Each structure stands twice: as structure tokens, then as C-alpha cells.
């Protein structure tokens, strides 16, 4: 997995609550059997005026001029500022894949849906929870300052604004460690293979029916 230590980038504000994963990447694009290439269809229904199709070249499609990512001042943004319950709905990991493929490295919101939050860490994308008033403040600052950038320092667990103001955030120790080091979860878990086998031995005595084979 790609490491995340520190990142500085332009902030794009997405000012609506309950942004669901259907909105982040609509279902027709989930038919892909690949992990990459979802960026052009990130927020497809909000971003374009027409209905997108898988494998379509998006360069000629009519853009919705009102949508934040289509505004020139937010071109090249890599930090998404969002509202509460971001990423709710379906468990599709295509949502963080699409955000990542577009170029986002971090999402800041007052709250995230659990599955989306978890999926982000598996893909080197950092979800950051700040409180409502901090998020409000950032929305205001972004609006009045063109080219507004934030620095995210995972080592120190702070978001730093252009004026030098720091916003501390919490992140689970294990996830932070994996992101900082770019570690592969599966490899880490397999280091505990003996514990897993010991568990299976013990559990097989208590509840043998859970070890019956699923068969045809």
C-alpha cells in the first residue's frame, strides 16, 4: 500500500451532508473488474450533465458548471472538505478507489460512515474527522481564499492551515502505523497464522458445526 506521511494540497469544498457512495461512484461503473481508472467517473452524476457509461471517453461530455470540481479554482485539488456522514450507503470500495484515482489524498469531514472510513485506510487515502465548528471554519476559509491549501501531517496528527493554525485529529494507532509505513494488512495478519490455527483448534471443539464444509 502507498505510504501517507505528510501531504499539502488544494482543498475542494463539497458542501452537502450525507454524500453516499452511489453519488461518489454510480453503479454502472462498478461493473469493472479492475481497481483503477474510476477517477473520470468520480461524482459522475453531479459532475456531468448526461448519463455516463462504463468505458466511455469522458473528455467530450457536457460538464455541470455548478459542480465544485468543475470550477477552475479547484483544479488539481487533492484534499476534499465535506459534511457529516460522508460515504454512507453501499460498501463499494470503488468509492475510495475513485477518489484516489482522481487525485484525492485526504477527506476532511465532521463524520464518516463506518465502512467507507475503513475502506479509505486500505487504499492510502486518509479520512480526517474534525468537529463541526472546525469544518465550518475551513469551509469559510476555502470560500474566500482562492488556491487555499491545507497541509496534513499524519505523524503529528494535525491539519495545518495557511495561517499556521493547527487542527489536531484522532486516528487509530494501528491504522496510522500501517499508513505511515505503507504496510500490507494481509501480510501482517499472516504473521499471526499460529494464533489463527490455535483459535480454530479450540473453536472446533466448542462449535464443530461451524467448520462443516460448504459443499455442492
Amino acid at each position, binding site marked *: 500500500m502507498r505510504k501517507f506521511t505528510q501531504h499539502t494540497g488544494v482543498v475542494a469544498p463539497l458542501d452537502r451532508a450525507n454524500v453516499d457512495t452511489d453519488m461518489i461512484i454510480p453503479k454502472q461503473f462498478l461493473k469493472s473488474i479492475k481497481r483503477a481508472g474510476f477517477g473520470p467517473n468520480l461524482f459522475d452524476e453531479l459532475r456531468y450533465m448526461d448519463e455516463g457509461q462504463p468505458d466511455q471517453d469522458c473528455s467530450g461530455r457536457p460538464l455541470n458548471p455548478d459542480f465544485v470540481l468543475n470550477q477552475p479554482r479547484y483544479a488539481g485539488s487533492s484534499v476534499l472538505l465535506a459534511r*457529516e456522514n460522508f460515504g454512507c450507503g453501499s460498501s463499494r470500495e470503488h468509492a475510495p478507489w475513485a477518489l484516489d484515482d482522481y487525485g484525492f489524498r485526504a477527506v476532511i469531514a465532521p463524520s464518516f*460512515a463506518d465502512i467507507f472510513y475503513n475502506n479509505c485506510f486500505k487504499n492510502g487515502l486518509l479520512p480526517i474527522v474534525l468537529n463541526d465548528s472546525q469544518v465550518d471554519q475551513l469551509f469559510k476559509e476555502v470560500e474566500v481564499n482562492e488556491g487555499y491549501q491545507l497541509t496534513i501531517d499524519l505523524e503529528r496528527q494535525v491539519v495545518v492551515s495557511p495561517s499556521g493554525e493547527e487542527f489536531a485529529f484522532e486516528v487509530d494507532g494501528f491504522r496510522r502505523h500501517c499508513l505511515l509505513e505503507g504496510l500490507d494488512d494481509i501480510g501482517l495478519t499472516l504473521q499471526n497464522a499460529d494464533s489463527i490455527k490455535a483459535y480454530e483448534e479450540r473453536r472446533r471443539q466448542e462449535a464443530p458445526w461451524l467448520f462443516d464444509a460448504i459443499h455442492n
Partner: protein
Amino acid sequence: MAGKTLYDKLWDAHLVRQNEDGSALIYIDRQILHEVTSPQAFEGLRLAGRKPWRIDANLATPDHNVPTTARAGGVDQIVDPVSRIQVKTLDSNCDDFGIVEFKMNDLRQGIVHVVGPEQGMTLPGSTVVCGDSHTSTHGAFGALAHGIGTSEVEHVLATQCLIAKKMKNMLVRVDGQLGAGVTAKDVVLHIIGVIGTAGGTGCAMEFGGSAIQSLSVEGRMTICNMSIEAGARVGMVAVDDKTIEYFRGRPFSPKGEQWDRAVEAWKDLVSDADAEFDHVVEIRAEDIKPQVTWGTSPEMVLPVDANVPNPEAEADAVKADGIRRALKYMGLSADQKITDIQLDRVFIGSCTNSRIEDLRAAAEVVKGRKVAATLKQALVVPGSGLVKEQAEKEGLDKIFIEAGLEWREPGCSMCLAMNPDKLGQGEHCASTSNRNFEGRQGFGGRTHLVSPAMAAAAAVAGHFVDVRELMNQ
């Protein structure tokens, strides 16, 4: 010391290792796979040269992309080439790795969350995961079940474990007696209306109280199914005699002496009387009326006799803005009566409401009646081949067809429209599914979530009606 909640018990029984930083390794008994969220997981295994830890703990079935019209021609006849490749990829991955798959035309094929319990693959006291957020459904049987992302699907394939952090305990207690015509779907929509779509975030949500106990296990599945719409990855109901009876004789249920041992163990799958929950929500069953969602989030829900909200009456600016946006998308005006919403299509199906009792409830309403002439389409899509077979034995298919509804092959269908069943732009649909997000059932489509009985009543009227009125006629 306080007693344990059901979630505490399930967690403790599956704990492989607790790390000092608060993360833990928990053991997964069963994984269900479908075509949409598994291809990248199999690819990941291959790239890393890893083998599944326990192949026989997995079961696969294609459901999201499959057509629901005649499909005897098999996978090659799936018209959309991208869908076809995805279903074929599942078939070949399962064949290569030796995973049992109920392929598209197997009688046992269906929506993952209908198939798992139906086969006894999901069992009380088990941990069940699937790359699908509605895996919470399986918690209705006293299992610990939740959706995971594709990286985790790969992780479970490779290690039979998940890295997890213990959630908080939440109890939603519904006491009292549900009125006639008020179903499990209305209960869960009402709960979401009360606590909001983030009300259960970070929690394992147990549903209890006399109204939940009085529901059938299928009704409890409908409730747990939508715990995710209340923000909770995990929904659960304690085991009782109904739960145990449900598993008697299912293909993967324990047999003989094992059955007796299992039943003994399952009886303990309840929260202790002195267990402490982090959050408790209490709801009176008598307060619940048939529900209809009017907006673009499941929490935008009201009783059928209400009026659509007015953003001017909302003090919170972000919320008022949300209402305005939803009204615009849904093509509704503030204060309009819900019963005045005219419908274009009706969809009865999805992992929320496509089991036999759902189909019986809908059939009872449309029996001897006709679908309104103003509707473009009314679809009934059973949750699995076995549900379809049972419904046909009971003659429900004939009742639907007679009334002017279409009787289809099993799959997810118009719940998320990855197959050809979808809404056109601007069309209103009364749907028994679980999400009314923008575009969910088709680009520009407008979804209203309801119970099967309410969907059937709406099909007959062409607009929303209180199903209780039809029941008295």
C-alpha cells in the same frame, strides 16, 4: 460486573487476538461472494501468490448483474458486455479456486442475503461477512454479520480473519403491538426517521422489545437489513425458538447430535438481563404507521398520511438546504400530500423484501385487483430461485400476473439497476428496496421506499394510499 450483550458474546467467541493498540483479529466463519465486489480481491490473491485459508467457508452467487427476464440461454445471453464479463469472472474465479457457487441458472441462486440464511450457511452464533453493506441482514439470527470492502474480502479469503475494532453497543427497543397493516419495513423506516442515517454510526445495533419478538424471522431480517441505513454496520436480534425452528433441516444446518449441541449453544445468544448498552433508543410500536420516503435519504421518511416537509420550517440551514435539494430532485413541492405523489413504476423485491412472506403480503393486496392503467410497469422479483419456486407452489405468481404485475427471475434487479431493470429520468417508483439515493434505481429516477403491502396498494391506486384502507374494503 455487568452482564454481556449479544454483541459482546459474539465478539468474545470470535476473538483470535487482541492487540495493545485496540485493534483485534476476529475469526470469520462464513463469507459470501458476489460478482461486483470480488474480482479485485481474487486478482489481489493471485498477484500475491496467496491461497484461500479455508475454501469451504465461502459461498458465491451472482445477483447484482443478472437479468430477471428469461435467461435459459445462460450467461452468454447477458446483453450488456460489461455485466457479462463480471458474472463470467465470478464463475471462473470460483472454478479456479474451488469455491462453491450457485451459478445464474442454479435453482438456489439469488440475492446473497436471501441465499445465505435460506441454505443454513448463516447460522446463529456465526460471523458472516460479504462485500456488501446489507450483510447486516444475517444478524437477524443472532449472528455477527456486516459488510466489508473488497480489500477485506481479500483479507478474509487469505486469512479467514478480519482486523477489527470493537464497536459500541446500541439497543433499539420497540415495545407494544404493531397495528394491522404495519410491517417490519415500516418499523425500520420509522426507526431511521427517528435516529437518522448516522444514528447508529460506530455501533452494533441490537433490536429488541416485544414488537421485535413478535415478528417472524423474515421480518427481523428486513429490520436488520436496514440497520446500515441507520448508520450501523451490524444489526442483530437475539435468538429465540423461532430462530432455531428456522434452521431445522436447512442444507448446511447441523445434523443429528450436532444439531442438539448447536441448539443448546444458540440458546445463550441473547443479551444478559443486566447487560449495559452505550446507547438505548425506545420506540412505541403504537406510534408507527405505514411509512413512505419522500426524499433522497432513507431518513427523509414520513407516515403515509403526512405532507412533504417545507424547508422554510426548518431552522438548521444545512438541513433546510438538504430538503430543498431533495424536493427539487424528487420533483415534489413543499407541503404536498404524500398520497398525491403519482407513480410510474412499482418494484417489489431486493434483499430487504423479496422473501416468501413479502410476496404473500403483496399478493394479498393485489388479489382480485388490477394495477392502475397509469403505471408503466410493476415488477415482482423474488429473492432466490427457491423463493420463486415456493411462491409458484402457492400460486402467487398467478395472482400477480392476473393483476398486471410482471413475475421475474431472482436477482437484485431494480434495487440498484445494474441489470436492465431501471427507472427512466424523472420517474417515480414505489420500491420495497432500501436506498432512495439520487440515481440509485436509474439515472434521474425517483425512489420512494415502502413495505411490500404499501407497494402493492400503490400499484393498484397509481399513487400512494394507506394500505389499511384497502384492507378494509
